[in-house]
C-alpha cells in the first residue's frame, strides 16, 4: 500500500466548508479524513497498484437538484472541483484531483415515475438496477441492467459512462435507452435535454432543436467531467413474465421458480466461424432476450472458484474446458405466449442444426436453472466474479461488429496466456471474454477479463505492463483501444483517432470556464510511466503511434 496520493492533499477552507454546510446541512457534509477515504479507496478496474485514488477535500450529500446546483456554484466560487458519485462502482467514481468535493448523490434515490403506456421510468441517480427492475416487473416491464451488476445506477450508465449488458440483444445499451435528462452544468446552470424541456413529457431525448446527446454523452460518457445528471428517463421493455420471480435462499443455494415462458440455452459450436455465423443468424431472426459469449471457465470460477483452481492444474481437464467448450454461447429466450417461445426455440434449434451447434437447455435442469436465471436476468452473480482473486480488471475494446469482437477475444486470450504463465495474474484458462450483442446484433462488445489478487505484489506489478500490452495490440489491429477514461491512454490514442480529445477539451472549456468539473476521466491527458514496460514494447508502441497518427490533412494513408 502507498500513501503517496496524500502528499499534496490539503484540507478544505473553512469558508468553503461553511458554504457547503449552509446548503446541505451539517449532517450531510463531512471533511473527516477517514470518511473521505471511503471515497478514495477505489480498487475495481483500477490498474494503479496503489488502489487509493485522490482523497476528496469534502463529501456532500445533496437531496435535490437545487442543492446540487448550489454545491457546484460553491465549487466555482472557491476554486474547488466537483465529482459526482452515484452507486460508486469502479475507479471512475473517485476524484482525480486534490481539491475535489465529492458529491455523493445517495439521497437522490427515487423512482419518480414509471409510465407504463409510454414504457419509460424517470429516475434519480441513486436508484439501482435491481430496484428499477423489481418495480418495472410489477408493471410487465423490464430495464436494461449493465454488466457491472444490479447495484449500479442505471442513470449513471445511461448519462455518464458505458452501459454494456447481457440483455443488450433486446434492451440495447445504456445511452441508447436515454429519453431525456436533467443536467447541472459545470457552472451550476440547469439544462434539460429532450422533450421534457418543452413540457411534453419524457418520451424523447432530442429536440425540439438540435440534439445535445452527442455533446452530453458521446461514446463513453464524460463521467462527471461535464457536470452532473440529477434525473433521467429510461426506456423500458416488455417483460411478459411474472411480477416477481419467487426465489428461496441466496445465490448458490437459491431455488427459483423459473417462469414458464423462459428458456435458456448453453450452446456450443465446433469452431469460431460456425459460432460467428450462427450468432449473425440469431440477430437476423430477432430472437433472444439476453445473449452473451462467456467462457465455461468463467461460470466455474464464479460459482466454484475452488474447482477451477483444481481444473487449471490438471492438463486433461484444462483441455476439455478450454478447447472442448471454447466456442460457447449463451442465449435466453422469453416469449409473450407459448406459441412465441416455441417459435423462438424452434428458430434457435434450426440455427444450431445448420451450424453444427449443440445446446444444453438449462431450465430443464432445476439446479442449473435456478442459478443461471437470476444471474443473467438480474446480473446477480457479477459480484461473485471477485471470488477468484478478490479483484478483476478488463481489457476493453470499443463496440464493433461481432467478428471484430471475436478477434479481440482471441488477442486478449493470447496476451493473458503469457501473463498467466509468468504468474502475473490468476489462471482462468486465459479465454475469458465478456461479450454482448446489441439490438439484434447490430453491433457487439467484448472485454477480456483477467483475475488477480491485489494483495499479491507480483500481480500488482503486472497491471501496468499488461495495460500497455493490451493497448499496443489494439492499436496494431486498428481497434479502438481500451478505456477512453484513462488520461494516460487518452494522450496516446487521441492523435490516432482524429484527435478526438481536442474536441472534448474544447467542449469542456466552453461549458466550464472555471474548470470546476473533475475532468480526469473525461479529457485530461497525462504521460504514461513506461519504467515498468519492456523496452521493445515501448519501441513497438512508438512505431505504431507514429504510423497511425492523424495529421492536419486527415488520417494516415
Amino acid at each position, binding site marked *: *500500500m502507498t*500513501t503517496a496520493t*496524500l502528499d499534496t492533499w490539503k484540507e478544505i477552507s473553512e469558508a468553503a466548508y461553511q458554504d457547503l454546510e449552509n446548503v446541505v446541512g451539517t*449532517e*450531510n457534509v*463531512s471533511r*473527516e*479524513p*477517514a*470518511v473521505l*477515504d*471511503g*471515497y478514495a*479507496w*477505489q*480498487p*475495481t478496474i483500477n490498474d494503479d497498484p496503489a*488502489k*487509493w485514488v485522490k*482523497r476528496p477535500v469534502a*463529501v456532500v*450529500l445533496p437531496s435535490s437538484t437545487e442543492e446540487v446546483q448550489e454545491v457546484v456554484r460553491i465549487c466555482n466560487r472557491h476554486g474547488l472541483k466537483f465529482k459526482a458519485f452515484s452507486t*460508486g*462502482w469502479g475507479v471512475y467514481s473517485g476524484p482525480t484531483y486534490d481539491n475535489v468535493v465529492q458529491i*455523493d448523490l*445517495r439521497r437522490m434515490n427515487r423512482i419518480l415515475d414509471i409510465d407504463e403506456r409510454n414504457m419509460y421510468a424517470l429516475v434519480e441517480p441513486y436508484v*439501482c438496477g*435491481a*430496484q*428499477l427492475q*423489481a*418495480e418495472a416487473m410489477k408493471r410487465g416491464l423490464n430495464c436494461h441492467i449493465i454488466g457491472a*451488476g*444490479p*447495484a449500479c445506477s442505471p442513470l449513471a450508465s445511461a448519462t455518464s459512462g458505458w452501459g454494456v449488458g447481457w440483455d443488450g440483444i433486446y434492451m440495447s445499451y445504456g445511452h441508447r435507452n436515454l429519453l431525456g435528462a436533467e443536467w447541472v452544468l459545470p457552472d451550476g446552470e440547469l439544462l434539460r435535454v429532450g422533450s421534457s424541456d418543452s413540457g411534453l413529457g419524457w418520451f424523447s431525448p432530442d429536440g425540439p432543436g438540435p440534439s445535445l446527446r452527442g455533446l452530453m454523452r458521446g461514446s463513453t460518457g464524460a463521467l462527471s467531467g461535464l457536470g452532473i445528471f440529477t434525473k433521467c428517463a429510461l426506456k423500458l421493455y416488455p417483460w411478459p413474465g411474472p411480477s*416477481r420471480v419467487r*426465489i428461496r435462499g*441466496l*445465490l*448458490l*443455494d437459491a431455488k*427459483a421458480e423459473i417462469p414458464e415462458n423462459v428458456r435458456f440455452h448453453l450452446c456450443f459450436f465446433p469452431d469460431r466461424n460456425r459460432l460467428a455465423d450462427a450468432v449473425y443468424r440469431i440477430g437476423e431472426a430477432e430472437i433472444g432476450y439476453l445473449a452473451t459469449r462467456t467462457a465455461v471457465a468463467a461460470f466455474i470460477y464464479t460459482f466454484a*472458484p*475452488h474447482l477451477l*483452481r483444481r481444473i487449471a492444474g490438471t492438463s486433461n481437464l484444462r483441455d476439455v474446458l478450454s478447447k472442448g467448450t471454447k466456442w460457447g454461447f449463451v442465449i435466453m429466450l422469453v416469449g409473450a405466449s407459448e406459441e412465441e417461445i416455441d417459435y423462438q426455440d424452434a428458430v434457435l434449434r434450426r440455427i444450431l442444426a445448420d451450424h453444427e451447434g449443440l445446446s444444453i437447455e438449462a431450465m430443464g435442469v432445476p439446479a442449473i436453472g435456478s442459478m443461471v436465471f*437470476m444471474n443473467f436476468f*438480474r*446480473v*446477480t*452473480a457479477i*459480484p*461473485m466474479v*471477485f*471470488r*477468484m482473486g*478478490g*479483484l478483476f480488471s478488463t481489457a476493453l475494446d470499443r463496440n464493433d461488429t461481432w467478428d471484430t469482437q471475436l478477434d479481440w477475444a482471441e488477442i486478449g486470450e493470447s496476451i493473458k496466456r503469457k501473463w498467466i504463465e509468468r504468474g502475473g495474474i490468476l489462471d482462468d484458462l486465459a479465454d475469458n471474454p465478456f461479450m454482448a450483442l446489441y439490438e439484434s446484433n447490430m453491433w457487439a462488445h467484448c472485454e477480456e477479463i483477467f483475475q488477480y*489478487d*491485489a*494483495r499479491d505484489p507480483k500481480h500488482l506489478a503486472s497491471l501496468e505492463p499488461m495495460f500497455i500490452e493490451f493497448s499496443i495490440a489494439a492499436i496494431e489491429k486498428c481497434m479502438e483501444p481500451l478505456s477512453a477514461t484513462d488520461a494516460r491512454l487518452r494522450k496516446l490514442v487521441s492523435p490516432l483517432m482524429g484527435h478526438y480529445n481536442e474536441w472534448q477539451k474544447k467542449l469542456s472549456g466552453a461549458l466550464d470556464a472555471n474548470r470546476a468539473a473533475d475532468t480526469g476521466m473525461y479529457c485530461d491527458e497525462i504521460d504514461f510511466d513506461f519504467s515498468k514496460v519492456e523496452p521493445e514494447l515501448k519501441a513497438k508502441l512508438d512505431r505504431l503511434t507514429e504510423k497511425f497518427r492523424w495529421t492536419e490533412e486527415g488520417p494516415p494513408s
Partner: protein
Amino acid sequence: MALSDYQRDMEGCSRCSSCKWVPFNQIKSWRFAKNCPSICRYNFHAYSGSGRMIIGLSLLTGRSELNDNVAEIVYKCQLCGACDTACKVYRDDIDLTEVLLELRAHCVEQGFLMVEHMAMIDALKREDNVLGEPKAKRGEWAEGLPLKDINRERCEVLFHAGCRYSYDPDLRGTVRGAALLLLEAGLDVGIAGAEESCCGGRAYELGYRGEAENYAEDLLSRVKASGARILVTPCADGYAHFRYLYPRMGKELPCEILHMTQLLDRLVREGRLRFREQFPLLFTYHDPCHLGRMGEPYLGDWKGDKLQRPMSLKRAGRKGVYEAPRNLIQALPGAGLVEMERIREYSWCCGAGGGVHEAFPEFSSWTARERVEEALATGAEALATACPWCVRVLRDASREMRAELPVYDLVDLALQAAGIAEKERV
C-alpha cells in the same frame, strides 16, 4: 486477534457496495431493497460495511487517525451482520463482522469509548447485567414457579432467562410463560436464579473482550455442574453467543443449545405441547439478527488464504434459526403468516443491537420504525418475533408511530395457544 489480523480482508474490499443491499436476487421492491440501517440513516459510505473496512485500512496504513468522530461512526452500527451476509453471498475472503468487532476493540484499546457503553460495562461488572439492575433481583421473575435451582440441584434442561427478560417488567409474563410451557411439556427444568449472569456477548460486541470471556467461563462451569443435557434460552442474543462466540473463545458448552422457539417447535411436533386456542390473526414474523444469520453456530476457523476457504466454513447465515419460529406461527390454530420482503438471512435489523439502543436511541428507534413500516406493508394484523430486545424496540416503535400493529413475543403466543391460565403466568 487484532485489527491488523484482518488487513487482508479490508484490502480485499472491491467496493462493489453489495454490502448495502439485500442480496440482489431477493430485492422485491424499491422501498425495501436496502439492508444496512447505518448507511441508510447516515448516508456517507463510511457508515456501510465496506466503509468501515476502509476506515480500518485507513487507520492501519496511517492515512488517518482515530478520533471521537471516527469512533462514533464505528459505534453507530447494530452489528446486525446484514452487510456480512450480503458480502459473503459473493465473496469468500472477507469476514466483515469480524472487522467491525475488531474496530470496536481497537477503539476501546485506544480509549475512544462511548459513555453509555461504559455505563453498561460498569453495570455488568457491578451487577452482572448490562441494564444496571440489582443482581439480587435477577431471579425474581421465577418466584412461585416449580423450577429447580441449579446451584443446588441437577436438571435436564437449564433455562437461561437473559438480562432483558429477567428485568423488563413488560416481559415478565413472557419469561414466566416460557418456563411454564416447558413445565407443561413435562421437562425437568432448572434455573440459576439470582446467580444467573449476562452471557457477556454484549460486552464483546462493545469491544470489551475480557469481560465476555469471564462470563463464558462462569456459565461453562455452571452448565457442567448442573448436568443439563439442554440449555434453552428465549434470548436471541444469548443464543447466538452460546452458539458462536463461546466455542470460538474455546468455551464450548457441553450440552445442546436451543433457542426457546426451537424447543417449543420440537415439543409441538412431538405432541408434548398442544395448541388449542384459536388465533384468527394474520401474522408477519421478524427474524431477530442473533437468532437468524448471527445465530449460526461456530463453524471453525480457517487459518490459510481465505480465497481457498471451503464454503462449509463461510459464515453466511445459512445455518441460522429460521424455520422453528415460522413453524410455531403456522401451528397456531387459525393463524396465518405473511412474509415481509426482508427476511431470514437478509432480514432488516430491529435497531437494538450493538449498543446502539443505549448510545444512539434515536437511531435505534429510526431503525425499528423502518421495520414496522415493512411489517405494515404486508397487511399483517400483528408482528411476531423471538427476541426480547426486538420485542422491546419494535413495540416502542409501533406505539410511537401509532401503528395498529401489536408486537408479540412468540412465547406469549404459544402460551395463549396452549391455554395456560393467565393466573398461572404472573
